[in-house]
């Protein structure tokens, strides 16, 4: 094109040595002198004000960071059943939506594709759906009210999902994983040992100590085996429990409960166990160790 013959009345101005035609016009940024009020330069006048706001936000942010350490639970364990899966808070509304009958089972596509598709699609294409000249929100009631209704729905779903989660935790007597891990770290700090949270997938399985003893027979009759399973490898596992608690500690847990486990003493007495048997049981459990003495 550059070397082709062209008429003399078309004057081409080149930028430097290139064959790019110099633009004589480009859309000027809005001239705010037309608006009432004072405008000011971006640097330093305006940026300073913006960064004052930034400084306030930063101080608040750092205070949050210092007062609330990021949560870290126990290592991922696919067999763990004491977990209610929860996404990060900003996905909760989607998560809640999928629990409703018209967004689950046969209608799952409605909840996972159609509703979010319409919502995010409409948001993405808002400028092409709301093409009127009017900018004030109260002068475009359709767009504004749709947005407000969506906001209300999203807020409701998020809050409801969170409240429901709290109820479920309470009903099932569960403590969120990251809180349990933090309690374990706290205990470990107080006792001056390493917390038992590390991920050791290749650990040798711990064996039951003294399966032919009287303690085991009592264990299978007690309430323990419902959750901790007859092989002791339930949830949570009691294998090697003697490394963490002595006999008195185990008795205290039986009497008072710990974490998500309620007290078991009354139930076991009701089941026909005697105080002596519970004592033998605690003694037997205290012998459970990863490295039993021969």
């Amino acid at each position: 094109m550059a070397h082709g013959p062209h008429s003399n009345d078309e004057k081409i101005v080149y930028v430097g040595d290139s064959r790019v035609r110099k633009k004589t016009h480009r859309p000027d940024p809005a001239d705010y002198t037309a608006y009432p009020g004072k405008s000011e330069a971006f640097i330093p006048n305006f940026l300073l004000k913006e960064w004052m706001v930034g400084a306030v936000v930063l101080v608040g942010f750092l205070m949050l960071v210092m007062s609330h350490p990021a949560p870290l639970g126990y290592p991922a364990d696919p067999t763990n059943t004491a977990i209610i899966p929860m996404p990060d808070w900003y996905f909760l509304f989607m998560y809640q939506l999928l629990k409703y009958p018209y967004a689950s089972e046969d209608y799952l596509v409605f909840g996972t594709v159609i509703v979010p598709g319409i919502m995010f699609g409409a948001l993405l294409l808002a400028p092409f759906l709301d093409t009127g000249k009017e900018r004030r929100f109260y002068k475009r009631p359709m767009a504004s009210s749709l947005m407000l209704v969506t906001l209300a729905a999203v807020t409701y779903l998020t809050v409801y999902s969170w409240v429901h989660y709290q109820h479920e935790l309470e009903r099932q007597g569960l403590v969120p994983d990251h809180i349990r891990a933090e309690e374990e770290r706290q205990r470990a700090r107080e006792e001056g040992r390493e917390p038992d949270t590390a991920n050791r997938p290749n650990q040798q399985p711990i064996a039951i100590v003294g399966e032919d003893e009287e303690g085991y027979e009592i264990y299978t009759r007690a309430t323990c085996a419902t959750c901790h399973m007859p092989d002791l490898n339930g949830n949570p596992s009691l294998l090697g429990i003697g490394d963490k608690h002595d006999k008195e500690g185990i008795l205290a847990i039986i009497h008072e409960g710990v974490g998500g486990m309620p007290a078991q003493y009354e139930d076991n007495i009701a089941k026909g166990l005697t105080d002596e048997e519970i004592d033998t049981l605690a003694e037997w459990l205290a012998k459970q160790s990863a490295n039993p003495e021969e």
Partner: protein
Amino acid sequence: MSEHKDHRVQQPTRANGGKREMTRRQFLGYTLGGTTAFLAAGPVLPMLRFAVDPLLQPASDSDWVRVVEESEITDEPKSFTFVVKQIDGWYESEPTLEAWIARGEDGKIFALNPTCKHLGCTVNWNSNPRFPNQYYCPCHDAHYTKEGKNLAVSPLPLDQYEVKIEGGFVYLGSLGPNQLVD
């Protein structure tokens, strides 16, 4: 960026009996600079401290490891292996190390690390007929005396383990530069 705005800054006026005063623009520039520094330092300083943490860790002395009975050590260096517990960040391992242990002319026991100080190959005692009673490195013909003194190729003598004798056993400690030769 602020340096390059100088030509827009009016020269400070000499008012108030010759005292130099800041212009409004200069004042704004400094305030902006200060705020910028605060906004940058707030998040970045913790991150830098986080990144340089290994530099500020005190050098850890390794624990004493029991290696062999004292009676087994002769004037002739012999190789012994021993296992140390090593904690590398989140990775804990028990690597096997090797030491050549012998009695010096004064009867004192010393232990050398067989890593050649030339390029890190492993030396062996008396393994080359050309260099009898010396440590010899097969990679580049470096060789050392019984005390680890470098005779050729290598720039430094062999490193030495700290040695402790207790209850008839030889214990080895941390590795350090050779103190037997100068």
